């Protein structure tokens, strides 16, 4: 393991991308007009509030909260949020856990990150993050 697993953002592995880079993303904050930026912020807050109030959640070993979110407008907004780290592989997930700058992690549907492995990785890294795991509506976990 390199430097105890520490990696800088520009040393990203495959399966790792910043939020906001998702396909069909809205214009970046810097390009957006003030009103659009405000709308984006409101939408992000609304999505997070809806998720925390309505989605099943599991508390992971060191206090991280893992939300199981059905694919929909909420996940679409979370995925585009520049403050959210989007991960598609276990390796990228572990790197996000180890990166103090990645406070919120999003695992899109289809990512090669299974729940037991996600739990094990969370157990071996003492960090407290918020993790959103997108799920197909028909298969949503009942944590």
């Amino acid at each position, binding site marked *: 393991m390199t430097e*105890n697993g520490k990696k800088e953002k520009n040393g990203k592995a495959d399966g790792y991308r910043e939020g906001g880079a998702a396909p069909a993303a809205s214009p970046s904050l810097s390009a957006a007009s003030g009103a659009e930026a405000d709308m984006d912020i409101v939408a992000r807050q609304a999505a997070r509030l809806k998720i925390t*109030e309505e989605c099943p959640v599991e508390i992971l070993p060191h206090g991280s*909260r893992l939300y199981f979110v059905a694919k929909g407008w909420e996940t679409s907004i979370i995925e585009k949020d520049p403050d959210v780290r989007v991960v598609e592989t*276990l390796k990228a997930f572990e790197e996000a856990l180890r990166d103090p700058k990645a406070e919120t992690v999003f695992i899109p549907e289809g990512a090669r990150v299974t729940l037991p492995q996600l739990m094990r990785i969370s157990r071996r890294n*003492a960090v407290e993050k918020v993790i959103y795991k997108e799920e197909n509506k028909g298969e949503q976990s009942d944590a």
Partner: protein
Amino acid sequence: MSRKGTKKDNANNKAGLLQKKIADLTAEDLDNLELPLGTASRPYPMWGTVVVDEDGHQSIEQRLGAVKDDEEPLRLYSERKYEEVIGMMYRDMPTPSMMPMQKDILEMLKPESKNRIYFMKGDPGAGKSFLGGLVGRAQSERPVEIFDCGGKNMNDLLFEMVLDFGKGDALPQAIDKRLAAGAIEPLSYGLLKNGLPEKYVEETEDGKLVIDWEGLKESGTENVEKAYAVLTKVSKLEGLDSAGGNALGMNSQYGLAIRDFIEGNFSTYDEYNKSKEGTDNALQTFLQFANGEIDECTVVNPLKNKDQTSGPSEFTFRREDTKLGWGIVMTGNAVEDGTTTRSLNKSVYSRLTPVTIPKPSLMDWQHRICQIMTGLPVSTLYRTFKDKADKDPEQFTEMLLYWRQAGLSEEQKANIPQIHTSLLKNWKNVIEASEKLAKFYKGWAELTDPDKALIKDGNLVDEVDEEYQKEVSIDFRKVIQHIQYAMPIRAKMSRANPSDDVDFNPKSWAAEPAKRIKRQKESIERNFGTRLTDLLADKLYETAGGAGKPGLYKHLKELMKQCGLKDLHLQEGAHSSAKSVESALNINLFDTTDLNEQVKLAQKMFADYVRESNPEVKATDDNAIVTVAQMKETLERVKTHLSEDAPVFLIPNTDPETLSSNPFVTAEKIDVADEKNRDFEPVTEELVDHDAFMMTLAFPKAADQNLKAVWDKENNLALLLMKSNYAQKRIDLESDIEELKAAKNAAAPSTDETDGVSGPTGGVFGDDDTLVEKQKELLDLLKKEAAQLKDFNQPTDEVDTYMKELRKEIKAAGGDIEDETRTVTPFTGDVILDDDVKIAENDSDTGIGATTVVVKSVNENGEAKAVPVHIIVNNSSKKTLVVGGAASDRLSTLFREVGVRHINRDDQNAAAQLRDALADIMRGASEDTRNNVKSALLFRNDPVGVDESKIIEHNEKASMEDILLSYEPYLGKYLVANKQAPRQM
């Protein structure tokens, strides 16, 4: 600049200092790193031994106290900012039983400490590795690794064999790509699936393999060797071995213990006594070094040159190379089950002296429950700061909210669940509920522990054993699961009702159901208590009742009752100041200790109402309608100006000219049951508006006032009922007397009529006797009536005069009136009423009140009509049911938030909703009480279009839903807006 200020400014200059050798740190470095925890003005809760004075005797006890020492506080050496550390330490504070361990660990990490290792043992879920992680996280932002010792060779801590995938992890990436594309050879797939260590490979539901490469790389020497063999074969099978960059090798390298020593990291070795037996022999000298027994030790790499690998041959730990950040927490399970958990070597015991975490106390349970519900150990903080919190609850709320987010980034703050904030603002409810939940969980854990359960009830011997205890394992992890499950709003189950209005048309079932009830947004905290306690009731059944353990299930249900989890109303109408867990955690929007917040909510609510009801008002800014200060003043005026029993209603003022200075005006109630209002003719236009009245029922303070004013303290209805009852009986007796007199006159023409007195002669004697008996019966009735009128403080002149005349008549008829006291109810000074009347007056011991008021409803064309609003309250469960017309979505939402159930009588599904609402508000009520509520409503309401002679028969068959949805007011309480000089609030 203050010392604190200097430190804050230097926070960014601290990076890397923990990785410096202690010997190389300057005094300034240490000063920069040192953060005090537990000073005189900022005490930190701590559990430990104190000397207690009791009745002049002193004893040594273990109690919750605090570290509050400016000279010698707890010291934490951290590269983080003070606020980040303090936030973490208050939020993630260990349970009281584990606080001494936290203290020991911090002591161990002081620069002067040679002992850098701490070993604690405890039950699963006690929070051991969490505490290790917390200390590591508090030290710095660097990742804190938790090393899982389970099943591992402990020598790996010193030297480990790792897989080497070369630069860029090319081989894993190539395999992953093929796996994702489904392009891997079946044989390779089989090898990966069955050949790699089970823990690191998983097959998804759609048949794809996911491999934890990072975990596999450092999975321990045995696993690495196994994986190496498999991957070598797969690499060949897939033709990846020939591709450039797909290197695969195996190297020995320093294990975690050496790496952490070199880098100055803090780490946790989890489940140490689950490691492979006999593998920790090589660790002994290292453990001696770590605990400060020796100052130097050299460990040799047994993997060197094994399987053609290269790597370091040895490592020497030297005291002078110790870095300030270096420290180790080892955890182990208390239970030695002989299979996966083993007993430790004697030498490990003597070197590390493991500390055993006590079984969780009630205080520990409560602490963890609070942490899970709110993100803060509210109960422990309250106990520590009790006097200040009681004296200034609002300030304590502010502190709680501060600790909840102290040192968090904006992103982290945005991730705090709203319910945490709501519950913290209602911390008194949290403390009350968590105390009961703590008793419940502790009791549940004990009932599933065979040693304790059998002492309680020997009959549980067949139901509770060690296997069952392991299976259900009631520990903190269960609390986490339960509370988290109860957080989101979920579908709710109701009791089946055979009369439910279900759709029984097969044709309509083919189509998707119409969304007949528009979903009203409900906040997560509004019914959190109900969801949690329903879940716990389900879990009791699932783990005991449904698992063939009837005796245990009975005990658990009893425990649930004793701990006051649900609003069960064990005794009808039993009033108690203690809230159940259910009601304490069903948080009302306005139920906050923060007055300012309450006022802000009230302002918004009022402004929304004004905009909705008065199109002339165009202001979008709430302050332009009414300011926070004006609203605050108004609410305070309500509190001070209106006496508790004042029958005055508060109605929103919609006059744009005056509303900002007087948001509310008053209205009065005209009760037709009151004799003086018997001729009242309501003018519909003058009645209070339906929507305005409804809005006040959701409004803080106004709702309390209006619900009080609705009820009739003068007992008008009871008086009316009493009088009409006597009037009816009088008519019956008078009629009998007239008939007897007529018969007597007809049968005895020879009677001497000069003095009007019948003589006891001949065949008419019997008739005279009957007449006198009837007259005496009437006299008795009048005496009772007079006595009851006195009870009601009513004049008795008319009855007294009547009695005087009647006495004369009795004497004239030859009767004797000496026995004046027979069968007469003595004057008691108390009104004795039937329970249906008491319910109608909201004065019943059942805690239930039911009445009807009349307001006006204005349709789209501006036409007004009088409409009833029925109100049923349950004073025990603090629930209110209102049956009226339609309410706006906003108002419906507000009703939910403040715990008022509103039923729109015009909703096509109103009957079903009403059944559900009635079942809820009368939960635990007896059949008699239900009938009395119905009777109470019938006092003031009559069926529409039913012939008067058939009303009684009709009423007997009517259900409560019929009365509430289709009857019309008969003895109305009309709410009339004050036309002249309205009292302005």
